[in-house]
């Protein structure tokens, strides 16, 4: 039963995708109905499976997951087997994936202005510019519906397919397939408005950058396959295989096979989860529609990277355990922590509401990676889930804000950027639901004590880092957390508090229920989910609430990964996290409450001076890559490959060959074809004609002549028969 449903989970979005593309693309209502129906089905299935998993219980489920396998790909001996599997980790991921996807699908309906009139001069490939409507006497502009409405839902359905596939797959290959499908959808959706050059470039950039990671990931998979002969988790993550891998030396870097594989796969994660140094694509990815940013680039796809890292944690752990070889763990921890801080600093200086969130996403992912790096994979999973919820919430909220702003812009006709936070302000009265939900999300992100989910997960990571004695990681993350709280508060203040700084902001108003509804649902999770993971040593609450999440996910690799001893609870990390969270929020509010005008410079500029510019320009990483990679690549392509190889070498050879064959052809035609073949053909034709002219006489049209011939033949035949048969 459960396995059957597991098989079906990815299927319904795929079917929806096919149906929309093939049949429903003319009918918007039908398209989004199909898409939402499909994901709701998957959602229901996921919930059922999750409920069954709860009934089974974590340990038991970890012992024998829901599992089903079929033969897929014939290989040398036997088959490559394709299967689905659900263990506690996958179950928990499935849970938040299902919820966020459904929410975002519903949200998209409102976001793309379903039910609004067609735009005056909208065209496919550009965001809608708004439509003029006649309303009791005077005409005014309102948002217009997305021209490529159906296409959007087709793409996101395909994406949902990829995500579900990744989650339920029981081996790395199908996981990789889903991974790549999501990559494709990400590309398509970032470039959804393909007539905007910025969107086009962003799409290409995202695709290329993630490719880099994926290639390494594929290498890792291949290496793993050569080592183990199978890609199924069950075959890989058992002690003897891990031991073999961990003790078997790899050719490079003095690493063990396990270490190398882990590292390669982790590079895939770096690409997907936009870790330094492959983080550059994520901020630009904000060119896509906001639901896409929320789903792909905050909740699910980028989380998939972290999910993979947690998935392969036993490998890393084993590699880290074998002291004979260099361990990948420190690298991971370093990259994670560094990314967290680095992205947070950039986020401080961004004015685009979505870009801020993008960088905060990067930094939060850094948190998780760092957590894995220090071996706290449970904390990482915890933060993964909570972050998925509140970051999706924040993105959707920002989308709602932008939407309201666009409404205002259309209303007033001002030409201002509706995403720039400096153009906002005082929106809390205009759009209360958005404000409160956004507030909840923001507090969760900045780890507002006790009530929010973010607090628990982040505190978990910090305390683990502290407890395991990774002080560098601990302090880095602490600073990052402070910055997080700071820029979150900055964002809230600039957006919602104070009074409107522009006409548009003054005329913005609340978005429809299809958008606010998901906000509220997600807000509930952003608050409540944290209480599932209260560590049991936590004062007061720890005794009231069971640390359900830790037990649940912890059971996944129980007995596979080396257990570290029980952590002694200490108040130090707790106090630190309290201080950084609250302090960050407070400072943020203090600094930014005084902003009055849209065009006034950022208060920090005075404080930081040139550094602010550095931050504002993201440490010039894009430029750096442009000079280091892009330009050489262009040069290589244009000059070396094109001009030298192609033009000079290959083309000339080709021309020579062509010329020769041309001459040969001429020779064949004039010397052989014309005289011999054609001559022969003509001769045959002429001969036939002549023969016909001769034989035509036979066609006398007289019955008797025909019969005469027939009988002559008969006589001849008879003579033969007589001669050969009858006489003997």
């Amino acid at each position: 039963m459960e396995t059957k449903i597991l098989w079906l989970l990815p299927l319904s979005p795929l079917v929806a995708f096919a149906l929309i593309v093939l049949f429903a693309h003319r009918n918007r209502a039908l398209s989004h109905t199909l898409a939402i129906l499909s994901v709701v089905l998957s959602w229901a299935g996921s919930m059922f499976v999750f409920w069954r998993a709860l009934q089974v219980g974590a340990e038991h489920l970890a012992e024998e997951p829901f599992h089903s396998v079929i033969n897929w790909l014939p290989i040398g001996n036997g088959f490559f087997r394709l299967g689905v599997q659900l263990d506690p980790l996958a179950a928990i991921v499935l849970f938040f994936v299902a919820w966020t996807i459904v929410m975002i699908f519903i949200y998209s309906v409102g976001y793309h202005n379903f039910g609004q009139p067609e735009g005056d001069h909208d065209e496919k490939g550009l965001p809608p510019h708004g439509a003029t409507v006649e309303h009791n006497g005077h005409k005014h502009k309102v948002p217009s519906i997305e021209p490529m409405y159906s296409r959007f839902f087709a793409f996101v359905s395909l994406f949902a397919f990829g995500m579900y596939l990744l989650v339920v797959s029981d081996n790395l290959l199908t996981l990789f397939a889903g991974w790549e499908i999501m990559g494709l959808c990400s590309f398509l959706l970032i470039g959804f408005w393909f007539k905007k050059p910025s969107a086009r470039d962003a799409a290409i950039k995202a695709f290329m950058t993630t490719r880099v990671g994926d290639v390494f990931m594929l290498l890792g998979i291949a290496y793993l396959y050569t080592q183990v002969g199978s890609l199924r988790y069950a075959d890989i993550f058992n002690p003897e295989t891990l031991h073999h891998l961990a003790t078997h030396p790899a050719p490079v870097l003095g690493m063990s096979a396990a270490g190398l594989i882990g590292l390669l796969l982790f590079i895939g994660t770096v690409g997907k989860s936009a870790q330094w140094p492959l983080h550059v694509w994520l901020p630009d990815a904000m060119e896509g529609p906001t639901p896409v940013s929320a789903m792909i680039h905050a909740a699910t796809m980028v989380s998939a990277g972290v999910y993979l890292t947690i998935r392969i944690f036993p490998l890393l752990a084993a590699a880290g355990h074998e002291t004979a070889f260099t361990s990948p763990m420190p690298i991971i921890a370093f990259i994670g922590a560094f990314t967290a801080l680095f992205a947070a600093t950039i986020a401080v200086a961004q004015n685009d509401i979505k870009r801020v969130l993008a960088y905060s996403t990067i930094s939060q992912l850094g948190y998780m990676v760092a957590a894995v790096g220090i071996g706290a994979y449970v904390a990482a999973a915890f933060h993964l889930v909570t972050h998925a919820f509140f970051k999706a919430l924040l993105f959707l909220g920002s989308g709602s804000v932008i939407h309201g702003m666009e409404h205002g812009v259309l209303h007033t006709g001002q030409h201002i950027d509706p995403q720039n936070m400096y153009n906002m302000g005082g929106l809390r009265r205009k759009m209360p639901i958005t404000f409160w939900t956004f507030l909840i999300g923001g507090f969760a992100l900045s780890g507002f004590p006790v009530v929010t989910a973010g607090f628990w997960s982040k505190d978990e990571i910090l305390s683990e880092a502290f407890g395991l004695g990774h002080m560098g990681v601990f302090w880095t993350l602490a600073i990052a957390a402070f910055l997080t709280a700071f820029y979150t508060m900055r964002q809230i203040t600039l957006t919602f508090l104070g009074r409107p700084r522009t006409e548009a902001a003054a005329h913005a108003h609340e978005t429809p229920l299809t958008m606010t509804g998901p906000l509220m649902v997600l807000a509930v999770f952003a608050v409540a989910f944290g209480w599932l993971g209260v560590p049991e040593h936590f004062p007061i609450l720890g005794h009231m609430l069971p640390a359900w999440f830790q037990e649940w996910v912890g059971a996944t690799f129980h007995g596979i990964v080396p257990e570290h001893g029980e952590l002694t609870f200490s108040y130090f990390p707790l106090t630190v996290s309290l201080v950084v969270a609250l302090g960050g929020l407070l400072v943020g509010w203090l600094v930014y409450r005084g902003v009055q005008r849209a065009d006034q410079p950022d208060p920090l500029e005075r404080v930081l001076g040139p550094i602010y510019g550095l931050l504002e320009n993201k440490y010039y990483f894009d430029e750096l890559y442009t000079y280091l990679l892009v330009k050489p690549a262009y040069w290589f392509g244009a000059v070396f490959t094109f001009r030298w190889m192609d033009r000079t070498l290959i083309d000339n050879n080709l021309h020579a060959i062509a010329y020769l064959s041309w001459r040969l052809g001429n020779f064949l035609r004039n010397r052989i074809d014309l005289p011999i073949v054609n001559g022969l053909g003509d001769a045959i034709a002429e001969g036939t004609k002549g023969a016909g002219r001769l034989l035509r006489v036979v066609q006398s049209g007289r019955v008797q002549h025909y019969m005469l011939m027939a009988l002559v033949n008969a006589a001849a035949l008879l003579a033969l028969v007589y001669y050969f048969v009858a006489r003997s």
Partner: protein
Amino acid sequence: MVPLSWYLIVAALLFGIGVYGVLARKNAVAILIGLELMFNAVLVNVLAFWRYLQPTGTAGLVFAVVIFAVAAAEVAVGLALFIAVYRRFGSSDVDDINLLKW
């Protein structure tokens, strides 16, 4: 009793004569006459074989009956055609009827 081969030879001669008639005559009806002769030769053959090889069976007789039917049909259609052709061409000479000439 007369040997079988006598009947067969008579039939063969009859057949030959019929063939000549069919091939050499001008008039369509004359051709039909030749055809009838050939039919009769066949009939004689059939019955002779029946009598000499399987006198207690009925196969030969049935064969003959069917041949009768065929002959009757053939003559009916043939003469109808002949009449039609005669009305159309005002002649019963098959040498004049060569619409199928090249």
